[in-house]
């Protein structure tokens, strides 16, 4: 492998790892927000316990989204300084807005939500999870604006030897963006909904005593996942029009791109059929009819595979361009980058993040396996005698 291949592989590996966790974040955040809203409205304890249990799953998953995201942000400067030199005046803006506004607020409100149990008034605490959801979606919005610019450099003009931002409106109404954004959101809802439904099906199939808890979770997860699958498939096909015009031959130039696209479409349609003809019509009986449980459990990893395939199709199909028709990947690479530098950092990032990703998935599985009673997030007060000297007698 030469230095360019190494740098590309490093970006592909960290990017894929990042999206595996981000896609679940995008799906779980609104699910947890819906659960907490239902608790706030109905006062039923089961919804509070659902919020804490699925919220803990969401938060554990979130950790790896942050770790991988940090590496992504800095990698632009480390490996691809040619991109910021040529197009930073355009491409930098959406990334700056994402980090400065969306992620800044998301992280702050998430801190308030995680540590605000029993401290914030109930309605303000509920507002925090909705703000976390909203800012997570704003993050996805700006990242997709930036990515769409690489597919189709709308809103910009060549001035001298660099690109200049000439039309911010065109940047936001980029045809490579407007259909891809809901497609990604759909993928997130599908992944999040199916994780909740699949984990619930697993617990119900082993006759977990908390039947009501997992019955409600399974139905809610199925509803959200089916909204997701329609969005993802619908806005997936809607992209063929603009791509045909802007990037003809996108999926033919490299066999990997075409293959990934074909497989993703197959998996997406398979899931859509499953939801249209089985899971959605039977949603009321799903939790009780145990023969459906293995189907839902088996389907759970599929959206994650499809999500990675989707990114492969989109990004491999852009080659050899970094910015379609304007800047090649080779020209975008930092001048002076050596195989030793990329090799060492690749080994460090991939080794560390890979290891932590495995730990994270084991912790998520463990949270699900141990069930709602063992949830730590939002637990009531600790009863350490040393912490709170209690009166000897209380009447």
């Amino acid at each position, binding site marked *: 492998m030469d230095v360019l291949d190494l740098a590309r592989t490093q970006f592909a590996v960290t990017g894929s790892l990042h999206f595996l966790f981000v896609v679940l974040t995008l799906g779980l955040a609104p699910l947890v927000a819906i659960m907490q809203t239902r608790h706030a409205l109905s006062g039923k304890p089961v919804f509070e316990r659902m919020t804490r249990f699925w919220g803990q799953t969401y938060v554990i998953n979130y950790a790896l989204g942050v770790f991988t995201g940090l590496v992504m942000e800095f990698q632009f400067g480390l490996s691809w300084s040619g991109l910021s030199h040529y197009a930073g005046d355009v491409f930098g803006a959406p990334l700056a807005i994402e980090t400065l506004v969306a*992620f800044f607020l998301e992280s702050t409100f998430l801190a308030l939500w995680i*540590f605000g149990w029993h401290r914030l008034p109930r309605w303000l605490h509920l507002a925090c999870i909705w703000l976390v959801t909203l800012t997570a979606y704003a993050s996805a919005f700006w990242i997709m604006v930036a990515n769409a610019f690489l597919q189709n450099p709308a809103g910009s003009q060549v001035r001298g030897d660099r690109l*200049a931002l000439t039309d911010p409106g065109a940047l936001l109404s980029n045809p490579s963006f407007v259909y891809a954004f809901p497609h990604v959101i759909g993928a997130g809802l599908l992944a999040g909904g199916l994780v909740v439904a699949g984990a619930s099906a697993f617990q119900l199939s082993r006759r977990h005593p908390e039947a009501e808890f997992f019955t409600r979770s399974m139905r809610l997860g199925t509803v959200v996942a089916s909204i997701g699958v329609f969005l993802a498939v619908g806005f997936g096909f809607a992209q063929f029009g603009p791509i045909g015009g802007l990037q003809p031959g996108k999926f033919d130039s490299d066999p990997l791109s075409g293959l990934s696209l074909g497989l993703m479409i197959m998996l997406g349609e398979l899931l859509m059929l499953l939801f249209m003809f089985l899971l959605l019509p039977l949603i009321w009986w799903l939790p009780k009819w145990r023969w459906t449980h293995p189907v839902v459990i088996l389907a759970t990893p599929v959206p994650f595979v499809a999500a990675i395939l989707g990114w492969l199709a989109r990004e491999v199909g852009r080659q050899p361009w970094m910015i379609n028709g304007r800047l090649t990947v080779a020209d975008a690479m930092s001048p002076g980058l050596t195989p030793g530098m990329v090799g060492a950092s690749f080994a460090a990032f991939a080794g560390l993040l890979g290891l932590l990703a495995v730990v994270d998935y084991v*912790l998520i599985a463990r949270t699900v396996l141990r069930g709602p009673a063992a949830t730590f997030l939002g637990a009531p*007060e600790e009863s350490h005698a040393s*912490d709170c000297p209690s009166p000897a007698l209380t009447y």
Partner: protein
Amino acid sequence: MEIVWFGALALLLAGYFALEGFDIGVGMLLPVLGRDQAARDRLVGAIAPFVLANEVWLVAGVGVLFGAFPTLEGDVLFALYPLVVALLVSWIVRDAGLWFRRRVDGPRWRAFWDGALCAGSWGLALTWGFALARVATGLDGLPALLLGVVLAAVVAAVFAFHGRTFAAWRLAGEGRPRGGRALLGSALLAASPALAGLALTASTVVGHAAPAGTLNMLGLMVVPFAPLMVGAQIWVWRTFGPRRPAGSRVPSFF
């Protein structure tokens, strides 16, 4: 406009040192201040609600560097390549310690991740010293290395002092009780290395600003949210400050 965006960059970087400085400092001093597991849990619990709201100042700072000073972003990060990699690895190791330490019960699990938290915190402080030496002087080779050793020691010392002051401010019985004024003083001290670096490089940074069109679009998108961002940060401090009751009775997620 360039000056305004330089001000934003300076605020975010200095704010990162002033705020994240005490998280890093507490992490560095974890084995010293926390002799047993319960004491370490209390120390981590003290910084826990602030970390997410603090570390994001650097993420935002790099975002401003990318958006408002794009040609500088690539040059600076690439010039600091090994240091940026070390910074990221330390940051991730420190954060992994925080997120994972309480996920499994058992003394060995928690001791392992407390070790990661401490090692990552030291890595962050020391790497910042070397990075500042490199950025502020533009030096390379042995002079930068020697200055880096000095600055790494300085940054580690001011972060550790800031961390100890924060622990005394937030936790009862953690050394001599400290008021808000002492914490503000140690925050300024922690921010001073970043402010010095920014002062030395100000003219270079401003000279690399993006054109007016880009800066205007950024301003249009960011300024409306600035009050919300400030408000959210203040809300964190009002909610998790030391005067709130029941501080230590709710178990910390970290």
